[in-house]
């Protein structure tokens, strides 16, 4: 049963991911990306990580993708802006090498001893152990990420703000 849900979510994720990269319109892509992310959140639930699944929806779908859509609206992009792509080699190589990479990666992950399916561990959904991890072992990265976000905000402001003075 659980496997069926996995398959459904996987198919949704893959299809919408393919749609993301093949659409010409950025809005369509963004919407499909939101679908992918929701599917991935569903997979996280399958893995028992309810809290992270919630975060996935809130941060990715809720914040990041909204920002994307906002920018798309701001730039007011039209659909077929670019016309036909003439760089045949680029597309050919991108496709061929993509397949090669997929084969390679599958070779890699298949080397791991296959772990049989196991019941969903509700323990993994708890927030307290995660918080403990964060504030002990991963305290330093946690602090760094706060500075990183601040740096990103400063950077975005610097890049985007209009020239003053002159």
């Amino acid at each position, binding site marked *: 049963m659980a496997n069926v849900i*996995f398959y459904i979510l996987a198919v949704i994720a893959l299809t919408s991911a393919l749609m993301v990269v093949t659409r010409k319109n950025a809005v369509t892509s963004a919407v499909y990306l939101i679908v992918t992310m929701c599917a991935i959140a569903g997979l996280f639930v399958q*893995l028992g990580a309810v809290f992270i699944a919630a*975060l996935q929806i809130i941060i990715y779908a809720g914040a990041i993708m909204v920002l994307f859509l906002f920018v798309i609206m701001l730039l007011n992009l039209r659909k077929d802006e670019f016309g036909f792509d003439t760089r045949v080699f680029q597309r050919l190589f991108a496709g061929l090498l993509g397949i090669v990479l997929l084969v390679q990666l599958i070779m890699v992950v298949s080397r791991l001893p296959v772990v049989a399916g196991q019941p969903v561990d509700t323990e993994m959904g708890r927030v307290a152990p995660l918080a403990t991890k964060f504030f002990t072992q991963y305290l330093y990265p946690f602090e760094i990420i706060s500075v990183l976000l601040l740096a990103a905000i400063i950077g975005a402001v610097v890049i985007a703000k209009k020239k003053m003075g002159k």
Partner: protein
Amino acid sequence: MAPLSYYLILSAMLFTIGVWGVLRNRNALIIFMSIELMLNAVNITLMAFSSFLKDFSGQVFVFLVMAIAAAEVAVGLAIIVSIFRVKESINVDDVNLMKW
């Protein structure tokens, strides 16, 4: 529950789609979304390992990756907008003044 390798293979596929998207698209925003897709794919791998190893570190990583993605989006979108202001286009193939 599906075995670990299912998740890993799904992740690899999504990652590859992301890479492909970066290589084949000319719209800077879609390229950027493809990069987000790659990061999400990695998140699946991390989360799968985390659950199967019963180790919360993986979840911490996923959380950190989300934060980094947010930071990158903030800066990246600002840069794309600043290019658009000059070029009136976000086609990355138009952005090739510097070469050779």
